[in-house]
């Protein structure tokens, strides 16, 4: 198992006795909706993106780092439930703008450096931002 080395950026919980034995969990988020981000691209670009995803999925699985990985359906199909006039009301469409909507995520068990490295490889290809967030523990 990959133990999180207590280097810069790895946040050891306050008062924790020394380095942690277990790895931390991070969610790596991709935005923009799969449809919107792919529509304007060339077939070669779409193929390249797919190949990158397959390679990385396989690599993360092989390394035993991936906890969960899902892509979401297009945000145009989302339902947002809002509180209106004193009651919850479902409306069609995403909460955020489409380019800010969640498109998919990986949950990995690794160091923060590793999570950032994974996100960087995707961003190098897509040139579109991704977000890395530590998952809270129960």
């Amino acid at each position, binding site marked *: 198992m990959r133990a999180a080395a207590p280097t810069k950026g790895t946040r050891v919980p306050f008062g924790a006795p020394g380095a942690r034995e277990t790895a931390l969990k991070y969610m790596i988020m991709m935005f923009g909706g*799969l*449809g919107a981000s*792919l*529509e304007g*691209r*060339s*077939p070669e*670009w*779409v*193929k390249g993106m*797919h*190949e990158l995803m*397959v390679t990385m999925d396989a690599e993360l699985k092989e390394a035993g780092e991936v906890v969960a990985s899902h*892509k979401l*359906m*297009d945000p*145009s*199909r989302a339902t947002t439930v809002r509180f209106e006039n004193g009651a919850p009301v479902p409306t069609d469409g995403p909460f955020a703008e489409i380019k800010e909507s969640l498109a998919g995520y990986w949950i990995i068990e690794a160091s923060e450096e590793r999570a950032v490295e994974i996100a960087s490889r995707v961003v190098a290809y897509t040139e579109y931002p991704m977000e890395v967030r530590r998952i809270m523990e129960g």
Partner: protein
Amino acid sequence: MTGGVGVEELLRDLAPRVLGTLARRHGQFDACEDAVQEALLAAAQRWPAEGVPEQPRGWLLTVATRSLIDQWRADSARREREVAVATDPAHHAQAEADDTLVLLFLCCHPALSPPSQLALTLRAVGGLTTAQIAAAFLVPEATMAKRITRAKRQIREAGARFTAPPTPERGARLAVVLHVLYLVFNEGYTALYRTDLTAEAIRLARLLHRLLPGECEVAGLLALMLLTDARRTARTGADGALVPLDEQDRSRWDAAAIREGVGLLSATLGTGPVGPYQLQAAIAAVHDEAPTAADTDWPQILALYDVLAEVAPGPLVTLSRAVAVAMVHGPRAGLAVAGTLDADERMAHTHRLEAVRGHLLERAGEPAAARTAYLSAARTTASEPEHRYLTLRATRLRAADE
């Protein structure tokens, strides 16, 4: 001595027969099901190391019965009488086949929702563990365990007994069983990588066909599965992308499965009433027997869809028929048939109508409209491979347009 794989196959084959016998004797389906699961687990642990006992079925029955008695003993309200019956060694081998059939009917009880019917059938008849079923449906094991427990409780609450459905209900109940097996197959076939479910559906359909050789629709369903699954390996490219039927490398189709499916179908058609499974199998057979996509006998396929539209009308049949119409009478005629579904509420949440429209518009020489249809379909699909396929199709048209 048998290895691990052999043991698992043997156990899955014995599971419904042991459960059938136990449930017929004691009637308490849910308790019996738990007991059989325990016996299967014990066997899976011990047989690979100690060897398969001489009478594996008897071994499982004994262990399951003991487990059942333990459950009863733990429950202080249970009576001595039941223990006495449970320990009676007499059993009727000839009743085993009937037991399995009754078991299938019970798992596909109309009181259950389709997901529960699927899960219970895979566990009780298929002999899969809860963990395996959960993995196949991509849900956490705890969720699947609750679903199965709830399904068993619902069967008990519906007052279902371990007996065959009465004759007037039998046809309708058999239709549910066939539908459940069909759903298991589709679940595996739609998600490209879950071939374990298609294999399981085929195994269960074979079992049902062996139990009811005279039922034409059972044979039809088995043939449909074989003829569809025969194309499985050709359906995905090296990079995992979907390959449509007309672009598939037909030398990669499973010739043995096609032969079996066609043989089954020709032995069945005309011996009884023709139902939707036989018709769909016949359509699959026409595709499978064409040496190239261009050789496909589309007029025959259209004729079969015409009959299917009468026997089992529905929007998906209309949509498939639109493709056949396009192949026989041209894309405009096909688009007109597809257009009749525009107002159909049942098509609002599927990508299929727009995907077919995209293909037909592309054939009709309208790349811009085709692109719009493909993108709309891509936004509606929940299947990753299909999403990728539709997006690629759309981007290709844009590239060609520029």
